């Protein structure tokens, strides 16, 4: 099996699921002949034809709403947001209509809303967002955010098969930078299960998406330069959170650093900290600390973006403080 990129892994998942289930279809802006702004859906219209790959008007409310209606009828729509930032335009439809459909109306909404997310690419304030916190707060939605090519494929397949709406955040910095060899066969990664990206005993870093790679780099550096054994947990799924994995690593190392690229206040790190505090208080030898972006709309000049977003050195600094607690 050859290595493929994170982006290709997503395309492979879409392709396999479209081949497997005729109810799966794609809808979004410029996803057809053009293959999408990042080419994730490249070739799929040619392969599956126009009715199964729909180029929509610039109407995020409509495409999310239409996907919901189709999902009620047993279809399995996969919606592309050209940039995940524009999910904000469909916030009402996602949080009020889609998220509540099963509960208030016993109507399933088996659909995926996916799109390029995250920064480190000089995209500026509207092409770099990490809006996951606004959605893990909404009961009825599931949220995944893979860090590896293998998970990108396996989680996409799981998301398409899930009976509820899954928001699938794809990190655009990883699209072509991260590669992996896909496991043979029908490779499905279960939603709701974290992954131990690196084993360790001195302290734990809980993270997801692009900062998994920054954390692994930091862990390596902490090991090489300071002899610290750092465990790195890649959450993969943000809703529902894998409490067992979070508590297990806490009980193992007694020191937890939560790292995310999202802004600090109201980011997911707060929720994770609260859960750890509630459940593992007696196991903590130090406070749960957070490395996050500054609370700022993301500026696009390289020097500014680099300053606002978490970097490897930040993680190292924070981990050293935590280790020394």
């Amino acid at each position, binding site marked *: 099996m050859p290595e493929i990129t994170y982006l290709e892994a997503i395309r492979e998942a879409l392709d396999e699921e479209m081949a497997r289930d005729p109810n799966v279809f794609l809808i979004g802006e410029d996803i057809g002949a053009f293959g999408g702004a990042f080419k994730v859906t490249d070739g799929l219209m040619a392969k599956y034809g126009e009715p199964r790959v729909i180029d929509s008007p610039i109407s995020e409310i*409509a495409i999310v709403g239409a996907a919901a*209606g*189709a999902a009620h009828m047993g*279809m399995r729509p996969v919606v592309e947001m050209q940039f995940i930032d524009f999910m904000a335009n469909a916030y009402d*439809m996602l949080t009020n209509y889609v998220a509540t459909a*099963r509960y208030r109306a016993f109507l399933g909404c088996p659909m995926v809303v996916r799109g390029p997310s995250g920064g480190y690419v000089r995209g500026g304030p509207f092409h770099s967002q990490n809006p996951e916190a606004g959605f893990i707060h909404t009961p009825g939605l599931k949220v995944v955010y893979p860090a590896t090519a293998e998970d990108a494929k396996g989680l996409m397949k799981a998301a398409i098969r899930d009976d509820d709406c899954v928001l699938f955040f794809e990190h655009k910095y990883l699209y072509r930078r991260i590669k992996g060899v896909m496991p043979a066969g029908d490779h499905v990664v279960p939603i709701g299960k974290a992954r131990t990206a690196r084993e360790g005993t001195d302290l734990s870093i809980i993270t997801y998406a692009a900062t998994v790679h920054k954390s692994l780099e930091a862990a390596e550096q902490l090991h090489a330069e300071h002899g610290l054994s750092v465990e790195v947990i890649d959450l993969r799924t943000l809703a529902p959170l894998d409490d067992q994995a979070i508590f297990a690593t806490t009980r193992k190392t007694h020191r937890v650093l939560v790292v995310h690229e999202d802004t600090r206040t109201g980011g997911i790190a707060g929720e994770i900290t609260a859960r750890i505090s509630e459940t593992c208080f007696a196991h903590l030898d130090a406070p749960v600390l957070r490395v996050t972006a500054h609370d700022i709309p993301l500026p696009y000049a390289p020097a500014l973006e680099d300053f606002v977003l978490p970097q490897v050195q930040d993680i190292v600094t924070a981990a050293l403080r935590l280790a020394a607690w």
Partner: protein
Amino acid sequence: MSSRRRRLGEGPGASLGEALPLERKLELYHWMRLTRTLEERLVALYRQTKVVGGLFRSLGQEADAVGSCYALEARDVMSPLIRNMGAMLVKGATPVEILKQYMARGDSPTRGRELNIHFGDLGEAGKTRGFLGQISPLGDMVPVMAGVTLTFKMRGEDRVGLVYVGDGATSTGAFHEGINFAAVQKLPLVVIIENNGYAYSTPTHKQTAAKQFVDKAIGYGVYGEQVDGNDVLAVYDCTKRAVDRARAGEGVSLLEFMTFRRKGHAEHDNQSYVQPGEVEGWAADNDPIDRFVRVLVDREKVPQATLDAIDARIAQEVDAATDVAEASPLPQPLDALVGVYADPPSERPLWYREGADVSALGTERAEGWGTWDASKGAPR
């Protein structure tokens, strides 16, 4: 020409409504009367504080809801708004369901989760009645119905969708995005604007600068008609034409029904903002039931006794339904935890909820709970 429109009264050729056989006209009468009687019962229950939450009337708009929905086949799907109880009844919603909903009972269609007539029964043709419960944010049902009808088109199913919006809801982004998407995709969807003069307290001239809502049809490149919404046969006629177009693959229609909201936005609203005499005028001259009774009695020579018999049957039906609804159980608190997701099928009660019977929950779910199963239809 993809866009046409017609002014009040200038019907193109023979009316499909006039051409209905008498027994079907009597069905239209039945549904309008049932709508009004049931709403009157709800007012009584509201005054007895047996209704939980607000009560929304469609007094004076019964023709619009009933006549339009009557143009659908059983396999078609309709998405109502708050003033389309009549359409829901035509589509098979029962007075018992509606009464239980309004009283927030445990065995109501939403088991006490959603308000008043916010419920539906959607899925396969033949197995479900084909109506979709609305949510409160206005306009949202237009994109959703675009998706429902997109499915019909993709699967080659011979089914049509119909969605209602108020004059006020046309101002929402969701309405715009939804109808535009449906138009581009040439979906079998009929969009009805019920122009009842007001959105809550806001008159239509503060809602749009257009001279008429049907003028929006050309901007979406869809077929448009405007019709007297208080003439049930004209409403049927106009909607049937649009439904037939949709079924024939000719795409979206935008219909404007001219009517009037004779009660407040909800029962608590005293309509202080309405011009003096406006409500009374519509009540005296333009009540859709009165008008249709005149058609039936004067033109169709239906004996008054026939109508009285229908009325009596309806009164009895509503009485019986009220008894059933009043006797129905309240929701059980723990049921609140079931069915946010298909998996997990239920939430666990929060730890500080002493006395919550956690053992009753586990991961098993009661039959029909939580997840909609296309093969079974929605739980009744």
